[in-house]
């Protein structure tokens, strides 16, 4: 269990939620610099709550959460800019009258702080972020005119414009066609490899990420597993969380029923 590296995110018996509703209970988990972590679990299992906790939007009701070297028992904002975030699709109004470059520039605002105008340096950073996701030629396009996959790239560029150490993506492939899904995951992998980003990728599509992530975190209110995919993707472990929704074929392909189609 001893790891020579210092964890950059550390949950210690942390619980999150509201009075009468515990979303995550007694989580102990350390995430190390440069890791690619997939977060899986059924709908309502606390995946998004985990994100919000790391972002500092939610304080633990019990236990502790340390991010970088700072204890987040109290919500602080100075480290938030170091965490880039792609929220779940549908959270943002995608017909908002904003250009691609204006969207990505917003990634600079938190880091800049109050009273400071974005300057040439910030525009350069934003343009570079757009280039990293392959959207540089679209900088003056309206956000609403892009395809779903292109919009996800722009939102990833906005996260990158924060020059983050950690990238959190909440269901980045939901609502995209298969090609776009693969392209987005491919892009995330590439950013992880090239920029040495620590990545937390929340998804319901285990097959899409199982060969890419260093570790899978399996949640259902409690932490059921946090280990390399080969150790997590075992019937006896997955059945505890998914129950009847789990189908394992002969080729050892794990298929978890896509709950998004049930709505």
């Amino acid at each position: 269990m001893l790891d020579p590296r210092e964890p950059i995110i550390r949950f210690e018996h942390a619980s999150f939620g509201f009075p009468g509703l515990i979303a995550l209970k007694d989580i102990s988990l350390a995430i190390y610099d440069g890791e690619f972590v997939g977060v899986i679990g059924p709908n309502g299992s606390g995946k998004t709550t985990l994100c919000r906790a790391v972002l500092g939007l939610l304080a633990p009701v019990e236990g502790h959460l340390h991010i970088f070297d700072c204890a987040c028992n109290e919500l602080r904002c100075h480290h938030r800019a170091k965490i880039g975030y792609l929220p779940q699709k549908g959270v943002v109004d995608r017909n908002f009258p904003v250009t691609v470059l204006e969207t990505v520039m917003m990634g600079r605002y938190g880091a800049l702080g109050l009273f400071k105008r974005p300057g040439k340096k910030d525009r350069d950073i934003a343009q570079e972020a757009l280039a990293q996701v392959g959207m540089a030629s679209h900088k003056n396009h309206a956000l609403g005119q892009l395809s779903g996959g292109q919009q996800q790239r722009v939102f990833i560029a906005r996260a990158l414009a924060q020059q983050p150490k950690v990238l959190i993506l909440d269901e980045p492939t939901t609502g995209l066609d298969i090609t776009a899904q693969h392209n987005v995951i491919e892009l995330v992998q590439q950013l992880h490899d090239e920029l040495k980003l620590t990545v937390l990728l929340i998804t319901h599509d285990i097959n899409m990420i199982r060969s890419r992530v260093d570790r899978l975190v399996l949640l259902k209110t409690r932490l059921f597993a946090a280990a390399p995919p080969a150790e997590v993707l075992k019937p006896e472990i997955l059945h505890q969380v998914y129950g009847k929704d789990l189908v394992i074929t002969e080729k050892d392909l794990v298929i978890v029923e896509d709950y998004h189609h049930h709505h």
Partner: protein
Amino acid sequence: MLDLLAYDFMQRSLLAAAMVGGLCSVIGVFVVLRGLAFVGAGTSHAAFAGVTLGYLMGWPPLLLAIVFGLATVWITGWVEERGRMKLDVSIGILYTATMALGILFIGLMKNYNAEVYGYLFGSVLSVTPEELSVIGALTVLVLGLLLLFSKELYFIAFDQEMAEASGVPARQIFFLLLTLVALTVVVSLKTVGAILVFAMILIPASTAYQLTHSLATLTLYSATIGIFTSIVGVLISAFWDVPSGPAIVLLATTIFFIAVFFSPKRERRTRLVHTH
């Protein structure tokens, strides 16, 4: 027509209209984008209730308008933040309750007071030099704060949680926006009136929304439309002797429908419908 411009009262009312038109249309951008349109309507009626209480008690009407307006937006913001009630429900209740208060205060007045009705329907042509300086000072204050915090205001209008997640003090900025909406309403009461100020906040920004995909351009268009319709509306009002508030608002509404008709977004929507 040019003779009219030589009068002091005319110069004052044109200046007042231009300031109010510019202010309303700039804050309107954030109101429309953040989905606070109904809050603007509710605030203006609350502010009017403040004015009536002022006349009833012999206290400064604009001061009470500010108190009532701020109380309304802060309660609304607080309720939304707690997630206790949907925004349109809480503002709907406050909207009608404050209007009832206003009517009650008018009923309690012993004499008919024409000035009170000026605040309801607006009378830009009767703006006094003192009122003009109050309007000027508040306009500079509100526009200055909007400019100072513009990047944060755009961000929370786009996505408040995202803004907060990336280190912007989003809650404080949201309450700042609500406060500025209340101040804008109060500034505009005398010129366009409690009923029509809402239109001045909503229409120029909604018109600009039809015409562009860029935040910066949207704000520029909205301000231009707001100032233009206010000035031309006042000229129409003076020239043909019609009330100024309706002249401004109906002119703005006409431009809005023209914009909807010629909107590049409309064409795109039609195309999308056909391809699906």
